[in-house]
């Protein structure tokens, strides 16, 4: 019983196992790939399974880059042979890889699950080599049918054939291979094809490391035009166009341009379906040959050469030629034309030391076209004169290498003259003693303390400041006492003087009367000189004493002034002065008239009596 049941179990297991293997036999899961590919070239790996998988997982693919995938395609194959109906479905998963280094890479088997079971495909090896594989090996079956494909007139024959380097290639053309450093050359990248070009997958343009490259604008879409190349007609497409300026001299290389493109050709194994235009799209890697360019060093250059090569014009603009000190001037240097603008250095200008120079502002306005870089480059200097004077900066030279004549050419600006005024009214432009080369003195090291006083130290023993010494107050008291003393003495003296003056005043009338008496005596004796002398003495003396005028200050004006102050009427004053005048005149030039003497005598007596009365009051 036991044995039977055991057998039963074994049989069922066996049946099950057979069943399983049969089922497994029915499913094919394979991987295939191109055996070789180039660096950077895309290559396909296809996994084909003849049952619909639920899921597919890629195996290990170390060192490779998965560019795209999976893209799925399905094909159905129905065959009826001798009444046997067979249907085959094929599911293809396509992955696109890329490698960046040479070597042999293994793409591990992918696993797919079908109806809950897992299947693993074989693994494939791909050899990556230096150069791109030029075969259209990796083909991809595609079912998109383009009925106009044949109208898209091209050289691709309907006969499937291998695409060779003569059918499809890319070239980089240069307009010259031998040129001077700084001269421009135009590089054109073009694709030539005889086959049906569908599109580009990858475009690796040369990097132009040794050049200054500027792209010339080309139409965004690549238009294929018929062109004859090496006596064959191609469809040629302009991919890029550059203007290049070599940076260095010597043998330079323009690296190859690598293009991965897709071409379409009729399917090779079209069978019946070929009739319906089964086309294959193949990816192809193209590589242009390297180009060697010889760049010659420019001949020995003049000192004013600033790297410009091409054809230029030179202009210099000066904002003002007369300015005040510390006011800014702008000087513009303008270079226009065509050539290597980016390599032109700032023209050298030797500025006077009296100017403060700011870094020039450079601006460039250039356009690229087939003839090269065209436009203008401007340097704008802001300079500020710090000293007055007339400055002749002279001409500024601009030298460039003329690509037409292969010679240096020097252009000169008009000479720059700047007059700097000290101020608005300055006309001689500060023609004074300035030493412009003078620099201000700066500390070289750290500032240090000053030296000791090595002369007399002005020492004082037990020093107490005067302000705190007890003597300080005496410095004030003593002058004050002196002051008081002086005041007292002066006052006394003044008082005494005043007394003397009073006495004199009192006696003035008496003295003058005495003098007048004397004068009368002389009059009688007819001694004229003595008479006048006595009259003058009487009048002057009286005025001096009565009016307290010191002899030194005694003048007619002073007498008049004081008499007026005392309120004596004008009549008396005028009379007094008149008599004095007459006496003085007669004293020096005596007249004979005796009546004159009596008259003067009377007048003098009258005046004195009059004044005597009035001043008393």
């Amino acid at each position: 019983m036991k044995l039977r049941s055991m057998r039963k179990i074994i049989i069922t297991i066996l049946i099950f196992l057979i069943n399983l293997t049969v089922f497994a036999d029915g499913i094919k899961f394979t991987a295939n790939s191109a055996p070789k590919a180039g660096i950077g070239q895309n290559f396909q790996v296809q996994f084909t399974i003849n049952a619909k998988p639920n899921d597919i997982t890629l195996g290990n693919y170390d060192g490779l880059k998965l560019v795209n995938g999976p893209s799925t395609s399905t094909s159905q194959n129905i065959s009826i042979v001798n009444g046997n109906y067979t249907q085959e479905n094929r599911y293809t998963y396509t992955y696109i890889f890329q490698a960046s280094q040479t070597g042999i890479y293994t793409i591990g088997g992918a696993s797919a699950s079908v109806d809950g079971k897992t299947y693993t495909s074989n693994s494939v090896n791909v050899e990556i080599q230096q150069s791109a594989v030029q075969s259209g090996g990796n083909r991809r079956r595609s079912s998109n049918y383009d009925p106009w494909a044949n109208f898209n007139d091209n050289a691709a024959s309907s006969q499937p054939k291998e695409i060779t380097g003569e059918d499809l290639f890319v070239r980089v053309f240069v307009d010259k291979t031998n040129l001077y450093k700084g001269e421009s050359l135009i590089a054109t990248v073009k694709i030539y094809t005889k086959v049906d070009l569908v599109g580009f997958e990858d475009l690796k343009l040369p990097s132009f490391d040794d050049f200054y490259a500027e792209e010339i604008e080309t139409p965004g879409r690549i238009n294929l035009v018929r062109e004859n190349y090496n006596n064959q007609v191609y469809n040629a497409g302009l991919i890029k166009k550059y203007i290049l300026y070599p940076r260095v001299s010597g043998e330079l290389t323009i690296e190859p341009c690598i293009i991965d493109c897709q071409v379409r050709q009729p399917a090779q194994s079209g069978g019946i379906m070929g009739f319906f235009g089964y086309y294959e799209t193949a990816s192809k890697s193209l590589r242009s040959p390297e180009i060697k360019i010889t760049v010659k060093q420019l001949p020995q250059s003049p000192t004013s050469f600033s790297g410009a090569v091409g054809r230029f014009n030179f202009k210099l603009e000066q904002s003002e030629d007369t300015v005040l000190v510390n006011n800014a001037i702008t000087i513009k240097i303008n270079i226009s034309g065509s050539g290597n603008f980016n390599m032109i250095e700032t023209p050298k200008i030797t500025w006077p030391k009296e100017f403060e120079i700011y870094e020039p502002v450079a601006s460039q306005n250039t356009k690229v076209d087939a003839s090269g870089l065209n436009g203008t480059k401007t340097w704008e200097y802001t300079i500020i004169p710090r000293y007055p004077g007339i400055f002749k900066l002279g001409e500024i030279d601009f030298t460039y290498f003329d690509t037409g004549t292969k010679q240096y050419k020097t252009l000169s600006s008009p000479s720059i003259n700047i007059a700097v005024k000290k101020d608005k009214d300055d006309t001689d432009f500060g023609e004074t003693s300035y030493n412009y080369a003078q620099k201000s003195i700066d500390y070289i090291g750290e500032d240090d303390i000053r030296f000791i006083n090595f002369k007399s130290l002005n020492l004082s023993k037990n020093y107490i400041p005067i302000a705190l010494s007890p003597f300080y107050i005496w410095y004030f008291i003593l002058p004050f006492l002196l002051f008081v003393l002086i005041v007292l003495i002066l006052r006394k003296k003044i008082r005494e003087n005043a007394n003397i003056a009073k006495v004199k005043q009192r006696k003035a009338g008496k003295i003058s009367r005495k003098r007048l008496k004397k004068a009368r005596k002389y009059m009688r004796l007819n001694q004229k000189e003595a008479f006048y002398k006595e009259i003058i003495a009487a009048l002057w003396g009286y005025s001096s004493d009565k009016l307290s005028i010191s002899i030194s200050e005694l003048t007619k004006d002073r007498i008049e002034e004081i008499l007026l102050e005392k309120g004596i009427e004008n009549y008396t004053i005028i009379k007094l002065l008149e008599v004095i005048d007459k006496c003085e005149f007669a004293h020096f030039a005596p007249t004979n008239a005796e009546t004159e003497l009596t008259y003067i005598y009377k007048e003098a007596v009258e005046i004195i009596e009059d004044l005597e009365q009035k001043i008393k009051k």
Partner: protein
Amino acid sequence: MMIIKLMTNRIFKKLLLSGFICMLTVINIYATDINRLQDSAANYYNNAHYSEALVFYDSIYTLNYSSADLFLNMGNCYYQIGDIPNSIYYYELSLNLDPANENTNHNLNIANTKIETKAEELPVAFYKRWFISVISIMSADAWAYLSVCLFSLSLGMMAIYFFSLRLSLRKTGFIVAIISLVFASFSVVFSINLAKKISDNNNAIVFDKGLVKSSPNKESNNLFEVSKGLKVEITDSLNLWYNIKLSDGKQGWIEAENLKRL
């Protein structure tokens, strides 16, 4: 009798004379000594023997001689041997005597840059600033002399005012007298102010780095630390503690031994 009297008189006169000569020579010797000390100090200084120079200057100072220049030189010596607090101390002493000395001010500024910390100066009212800048034009003695001169001028002008007969003279006399009297009194104030700084200065220099506390005992809170060479104002004292005020307004108590009064 007469002869004896005459003799003694003569002897006395002689003695007096010789004594006088003696005194003169003593003073003379003293003066030359001091001069010699000065010269050797200057020599040592010039040959970069700063500590020796300092010994000489110190000996002059201990003989009770003082002057702004002496303090300046001592400050220089201390600066050169790297004793910044002492150099600042002597520069400050020198400035007390002669606040206008340009060299001293310059050296003090340089020495002050060598201090570890500094107290930001509080903004001072404009009139105080003016007062300080005006007062610092001259030394205390110069102000004192000026005050006396101005006072005398004022008196002279007053005399002219009193006794001149000319009106214009009297007018100018009066104005000048008043103005010079005002200036004289200003000078007196300045002079006394400066003199007090010399004799009784309430500023001090920190000689030992120390902690400033909130009250005058060791247990109280630490407020801040003052570094060597800092100039502080002493506002109060208790036992052996000083209440100090920094130029940025911070206040606190510090042990007296950390400071040296100017």
